[in-house]
């Protein structure tokens, strides 16, 4: 008991460690219960009549990045070049869900910036996005070959996020 006077110091150090790890968490990121679950059922029309839309079955068979975007969404512009690059590299299939947008404007937006999406579904009501737990575009989901959601990224997808969070997961699934 000689060093019992140090007890408050230990408590303080413990609290300090707790708060410090807490500082590292971004409070605007809401953890998703959908990770490691099957992607929700949906069947969306395309932006233009005659094109193919996007439905749950389209996610099967290959690793897919599902990206929620909108032409009115500024951060989407920021992450767009990365999506175009991913499409070019061809390592993963990228599909888009156009969130609460006017198809015409989405079309123009993609014509200006390049279209990284294999397929696009138009979610004009935003209801499919709610089924995916989307609370703000852009959001990106990694879906595995069996249609299971494996990762969710909220906000701008930066090359750093891609290499840190997505690439290791993708490597695991490619084996």
């Amino acid at each position, binding site marked *: 008991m000689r060093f019992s006077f140090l007890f408050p110091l230990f408590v303080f150090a413990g609290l300090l460690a707790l708060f410090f790890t807490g500082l590292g968490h971004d*409070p*605007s990121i*809401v*953890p*998703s*219960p*959908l990770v490691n679950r099957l992607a929700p059922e949906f069947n969306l029309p395309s932006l233009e009549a005659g094109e193919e839309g996007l439905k749950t079955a389209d996610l099967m068979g290959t690793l897919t990045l599902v990206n929620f975007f909108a032409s009115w969404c500024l951060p989407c512009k920021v992450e767009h070049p990365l999506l175009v690059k991913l499409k070019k590299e061809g390592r993963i299939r990228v599909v888009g869900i156009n969130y*609460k947008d006017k198809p015409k404007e989405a079309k123009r937006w993609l014509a200006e910036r390049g279209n990284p999406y294999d397929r696009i579904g138009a979610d004009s009501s*935003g*209801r499919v996005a*709610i*089924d*995916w*737990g989307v*609370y*703000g575009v852009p959001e990106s989901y990694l879906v595995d070959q069996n249609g299971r959601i494996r990762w969710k990224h909220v906000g701008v997808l930066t090359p750093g996020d891609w290499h840190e969070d997505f690439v290791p997961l993708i490597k695991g699934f490619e084996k």
Partner: protein
Amino acid sequence: MKRVLIALFLATTAPVFAVEPDEILNDPILEARARDIGKELRCPVCQNQSIDDSDANLARDLRLLIRERLKAGDSDKAAISFIVERYGNYVLLRPPLKPATYPLWLGPFIIFGVALLIATLYLRGRRRADLMTRTLSPDEERRIQDLMDHH
């Protein structure tokens, strides 16, 4: 008169909600249930407001969704879990009691118990030390004698 006026004010002013007129259901019972649910759910966008208080588009969509579920015959519980399945326990403004939240609910009582224990042990130890072992020093004895002599 004053009391009547105050009562009238309280009765006629509704608390401020973001719920818009076009969202409100015709059935007052369903609407009341929707309000109760809306107060319990956190808006994922603004995070510190319930979906009833929030002006965010998503909050509006969720309010409409809940009204749809209720109209379709969902119980309150089913409507809430519909949202929780998509956005997680995070959206519950009152976290449920379950193993993952035990520290949250029980932590304060445990900390209080530990503090009480430490305080009791400390105080008991001090009183014992005071009463049993301490005697007056010669100096103190002299001062007491001094005081008693003079009064």
